């Protein structure tokens, strides 16, 4: 399944359906860059509501987007994380960089 991109205000919402592995990470990277380059977008929300799996490739792609939003003084949010994704985020230390929220609406509210 392909990642879905949506823009709301200056937020880019990336919804990851299915499994966030090496293959999916490459797809996200490819498209996210075209959205983030030369636009007003400052923040990125990763929506994990329909994500059933994630490995270190996911960590890499989140870390990469974090560096991009930091340059624009924006924030990176993660919403609807299940337990196994939370564990990956914790072990990798990403929880220190990523703002965890319950829903997309919560993330949009927080600015």
């Amino acid at each position: 399944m392909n990642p879905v991109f949506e823009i709301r205000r200056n937020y880019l919402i990336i919804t990851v359906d299915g499994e966030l592995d090496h293959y999916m990470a490459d797809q996200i990277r490819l498209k996210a860059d075209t959205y983030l380059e030369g636009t007003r977008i400052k923040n990125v929300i990763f929506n994990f509501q329909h994500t059933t799996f994630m490995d270190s490739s996911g960590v890499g792609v989140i870390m990469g987007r974090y560096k991009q939003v930091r340059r624009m003084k924006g924030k990176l949010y993660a919403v609807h994380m299940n337990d196994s994704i939370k564990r990956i985020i914790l072990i990798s230390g990403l929880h220190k960089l990523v703002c965890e929220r319950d829903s997309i609406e919560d993330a949009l509210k927080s600015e």
Partner: protein
Amino acid sequence: MGHQAFWKKTDTDTSEKQAGEELWEQERNIRDNKMEVSILAIPENEQLARMLVTAFVMPLNPTIEELSDIKTAVSEAVTNAIIHGYPKELFFGEEKYVHITCRNEEHTLHVKIQDEGVGIEDVKKAMEPMYTTKPELERSGMGFAFMEAFMDGILVKSKLQKGVTVIMNKTIGKEVCHE
């Protein structure tokens, strides 16, 4: 059992072999099983590898969390073989394989993931968290750390230009009491 009946009918001169086979059937724990597969080293097959190992371990009745641990560990090892073992610069257009061997023994899954790629010069260093040789591909250096965290044991062997072998095991249902 159906297999055994077939064996008896078609083979005439194998009473010794047949006895051995029957003994193996008797001694073998009902859950014991083996699988050997070789898959083409392309990113699309990482999902296939996860599905194969997941399906293989099902008879041990893993919890959702145990399954997720195994899936992640297998994904890490197979992804490493594809990205690092057979880097595109060196192997473009070549048909290369990742070999996966699984064994269920009692309540333990043993899984071996092997490639014949470039190998690792310093295995100890490679296994350190956050160590990566491919930061330009946005790798985070967490693969081995996840394998260690999610499996009970891991052994990594390598020889330069010969490839890498990762052997891992995980006992299923440790928190429940086996009869």
